[in-house]
């Protein structure tokens, strides 16, 4: 069947993660607009670049009450020929790594309110597939990130360590986000890393896009006072590795090399930046500590 010249093109929401452009084709009415609202940014204009990943997203009506895994990777199964199933039909799809094209069918409940954050993990996997196609490494890191004086600060730690608290206590500063940041090699091959904001959502909604050379990685711990300290290098790298999104693409599941690649990435990041432990209380006073340690100008 050929398309009628009168037929409308399939609505598309284009989203950029770092320099990886995704085209999310949304044939169902309202879905593209809903994604734009969720990510709080308009679709990247057509002509601004060629998408490296193109996914057709279909929302499936259902009358069951699905369970929602914390990680979509733990319940993912490969079905052959690029097809996959996550959590017994919660998400199904197919992806061709050669063309970068695929389809994702998701039960409607997963695109409801905060549960959409779980759906975002599909796009984490799409990002891994995109990087493989682009041949340029970059790592998504569960983190808060803030730019100060043109320098990027990455705050990492396990759930509950205070990533969103850092963002909420950085008024007047350029907060890239409180959920997911991108770390990629600085252009020019001079060593070092660049910190880039991503569209992925935590609880902090005043995030702004941007990027800056990575100045420091700060491992968050709650403490009785604001204090910057050292950690054994192996422990610090292990913490950072644990916050790196597993390098598992849409057509993959975790394998024996997944965790070693995360550790290797953390070690590479650590080799070219400063790692410190930041013990802090939930107030903006930790910035005084960072200003003193890193020679940053106070907030004017």
């Amino acid at each position, binding site marked *: 069947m050929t398309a009628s010249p009168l037929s409308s093109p399939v609505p598309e929401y284009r989203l950029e993660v770092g320099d990886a452009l995704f085209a999310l084709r949304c044939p169902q009415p309202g879905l593209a607009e809903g994604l734009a609202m969720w990510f709080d940014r308009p679709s990247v204009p057509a002509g601004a670049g060629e998408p490296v990943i193109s996914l057709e997203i279909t929302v499936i009506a259902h009358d069951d009450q699905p369970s929602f895994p914390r990680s979509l990777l733990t319940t993912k199964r490969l079905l052959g020929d690029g097809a996959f199933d996550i959590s017994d039909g919660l998400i199904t799809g197919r992806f061709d790594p050669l063309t970068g094209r695929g389809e994702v069918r998701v039960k409607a409940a997963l695109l409801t309110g905060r549960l959409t954050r779980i759906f975002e993990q599909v796009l984490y996997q799409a990002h891994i597939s995109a990087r493989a196609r682009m041949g340029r490494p970059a790592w998504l890191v569960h983190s808060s990130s803030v730019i100060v004086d043109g320098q990027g600060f990455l705050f990492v730690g396990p759930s509950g360590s205070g990533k969103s608290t850092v963002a909420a206590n950085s008024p007047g500063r350029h907060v890239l986000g409180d959920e997911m940041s991108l770390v990629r090699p600085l252009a020019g091959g001079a060593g070092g890393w660049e910190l880039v904001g991503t569209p992925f959502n935590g609880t902090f909604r005043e995030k702004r896009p941007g990027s800056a050379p990575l100045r420091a990685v700060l491992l968050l711990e709650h403490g009785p006072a604001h204090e910057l300290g050292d950690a*054994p290098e*192996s*422990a610090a790298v292990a913490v950072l*590795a644990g916050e790196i999104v597993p390098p598992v693409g849409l057509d993959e599941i*975790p394998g024996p090399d*997944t965790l*070693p690649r995360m*550790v290797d990435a953390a070690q590479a990041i650590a080799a070219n930046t400063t790692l410190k432990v930041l013990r802090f209380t939930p107030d903006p006073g930790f910035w005084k500590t960072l200003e003193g340690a890193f020679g940053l100008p106070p907030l004017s």
Partner: protein
Amino acid sequence: MKSINLDTILVPNAACPVREIGDGLIIMAPTGTATHTLEELGAFVWRQLDGQRTLRQVAEAIVSEYDVTLDAAAKDLCEFASQLVAAELVGAQ
């Protein structure tokens, strides 16, 4: 599980990837779901585990390198060895 004593020989689990990080090590669980970090002394012990030496010989190596008595080293080493075995990072013979 085999009881751990100073005649025990520990054999690193070949399925566990290991990375040298500074003075320490990161050892990954065979299931690929967890990392274990060893700092300087733990890493020193790990490097002694060649599948030949007994824990008594490893304790003697610790004493020759660090300011600690043989009794104290042996006690801590057996406890540490039990943790390594429980985490399936080593096998005990």
